[in-house]
């Protein structure tokens, strides 16, 4: 299992899945604390019309235009949610529900109306991604990791998601204190003169960036699951924010690796012949982790219900 075939067929998807999971879990921690966990859900729904429009404009399924389209759609969605919430004085959950279902419906309609028979673009692909197809044919073994020529043939999703993760991580590191302050106590952050609203918009934009890049590689199930499940499970493990982040990264990695391995090799171990959906399995594993944390996590109970 650990030979040349593994490096060529399994290593790139596992790496991409892990990096995508971490890139989503990082901002997910703060979205969770701000009770905005469902932003990830909303963003990954509205990405569909974005990529369909990008396809209609450019006529190809090239990655950058699609990511741009997806990013623009995410931005439009956030603006629409905010506008509807304010103009209509509607609670955020309902405003979100109005916007993301509408935009997703528009995406599906656009997709059905346009001729995409020649390209790999459909709703299923958008939902589950195609992690399994991100293979590295040039690899001949572990040595290929030092072979520049072979490295150049890595699936382009890998450097893209790695770069995205780097950006997300660096921005979050640099803005750590203001982010924590404004998440914990917005009023206090304001009295310090922190640009509270800009920080909020920045966080959502960062989440959108992670979602769009991860979506391109792994589909929206993983995006939604990784925004929420690893941070949620981590929250039940500790009362320290820094520790929570590390737990969430560990859980995200575990979900991605274990999920991929179970989907790819599990059926073989059981005597089957076909691999299962890796995206679905990664989400499922993250759910099992959350279930275990909810049952046994040391800080699972609400603070008021624990002995002092």
């Amino acid at each position: 299992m650990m030979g040349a075939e593994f490096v060529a067929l399994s290593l790139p998807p596992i790496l991409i899945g892990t990096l995508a999971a971490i890139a989503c879990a990082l901002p997910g921690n703060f979205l969770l604390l701000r009770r905005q966990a469902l932003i990830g859900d909303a963003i990954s729904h509205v990405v569909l019309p974005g990529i369909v429009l990008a396809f209609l404009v450019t006529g190809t399924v090239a990655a950058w235009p699609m990511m741009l389209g997806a990013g623009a759609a995410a931005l439009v969605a956030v603006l629409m949610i905010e506008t509807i919430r304010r103009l209509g004085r509607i609670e955020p959950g309902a405003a979100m529900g109005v916007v993301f279902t509408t935009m997703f419906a528009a995406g599906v309609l656009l997709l059905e109306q346009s001729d995409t028979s020649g390209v790999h673009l459909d709703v299923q692909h958008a939902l589950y991604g195609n992690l399994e197809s991100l293979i590295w044919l040039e690899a001949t073994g572990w040595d290929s990791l030092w072979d520049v020529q072979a490295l150049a043939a890595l699936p382009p999703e890998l450097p893209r998601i790695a770069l995205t993760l780097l950006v997300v991580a660096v921005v979050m590191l640099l803005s750590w204190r203001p982010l924590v302050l404004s998440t914990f106590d917005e009023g206090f952050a304001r009295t310090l003169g922190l640009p509270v609203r800009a920080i909020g918009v920045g966080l959502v934009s960062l989440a959108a960036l992670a979602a769009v890049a991860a979506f391109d590689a792994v589909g929206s199930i993983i995006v939604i699951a990784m925004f929420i499940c690893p941070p949620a499970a981590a929250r039940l493990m500790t009362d320290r924010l820094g520790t929570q982040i590390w737990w969430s990264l560990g859980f995200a990695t575990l979900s991605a690796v274990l999920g991929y391995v179970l989907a790819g090799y599990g059926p073989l171990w059981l005597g089957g012949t076909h691999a299962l959906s890796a995206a679905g399995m990664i989400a499922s594993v993250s759910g099992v982790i959350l279930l275990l944390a909810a049952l046994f996590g040391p800080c699972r109970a609400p603070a008021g219900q624990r002995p002092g």
Partner: protein
Amino acid sequence: MLTDALLLQLGYNATLVTLGAALLGAAAGVTGVFLVLGKRALVSDAVSHATLPGIGLAFIAMVMAGGDGRALPGLLLGAAAAAGLGLLCVSWLTRRTRLGEDAAIGAVLSVFFGAGVVLLTVIQTMSAGRQAGLETFLLGSTAGMLRSDALVIALAGALVLALVLALRRPMTLAAFDPDFAVARGLNVRRIDLAAMGLAMAITVIGLKIVGLILIVALLIIPPVAARFWSDRVDHVLALSGLLGGISGYGGAALSATAPGLPTGPLIVLLSFALFALSLLAAPRRGVLATLLRRRRAVAPGAGR
């Protein structure tokens, strides 16, 4: 063609589907009011996504029992069971852990959906699963719907609508003022459960027409739109049902006129159009009315 469709002239099946969609939309519109009033609109999103593994397991079970895996009543039963489990998970996570409802919703939604996708790939590897077509439950599909299926949907939609209308008074009380409802001797917990149960029923019935990803729109958009027109709960209920019914009817009729016009998205887009109209033009709460009022208020008072 469109007038034919709107006048139900496209054959018996299409007529049944259109009427079913209208009943479903009306029932969803009325039920959704209670969810939106109780600020629980997105719980139904978790519930609808949670149906997928139930559909998959029901298919597998029916095939293993030697039957046709695609029998709609069986699939809907599985969907309902999984939706109920998803709902239980949301409330368990919210009550027993420190996680907020939003996190619980997102977690249940993504994990159940992920598990469902895994099951779909399992089904693809089964010999009977090649043409299972369970993917149609994601976005709904009315093309080639069996007459019996259309009948089931229309009847179930009518039943749910009747139930919601019968229960509207206690549900209004419970959603608007739980404390008062308790003081009046109502069992608020049971009423909440009934409201969620009805939402679940709508989700399950709507799977075939609207699909599990978009069904939540029918529960959210009409109530939010109706809220703009009135502050009285009974008016909001009636209007929301009406808007939902129009969306269902119009969307289904429109989609029957040509191929490549999926029913679910059309229904959702139509309801959004009605929402946008309400947001702009409703008297008092609408944007135009607010702007006009502000202008009038500012003009004389600006002399300071």
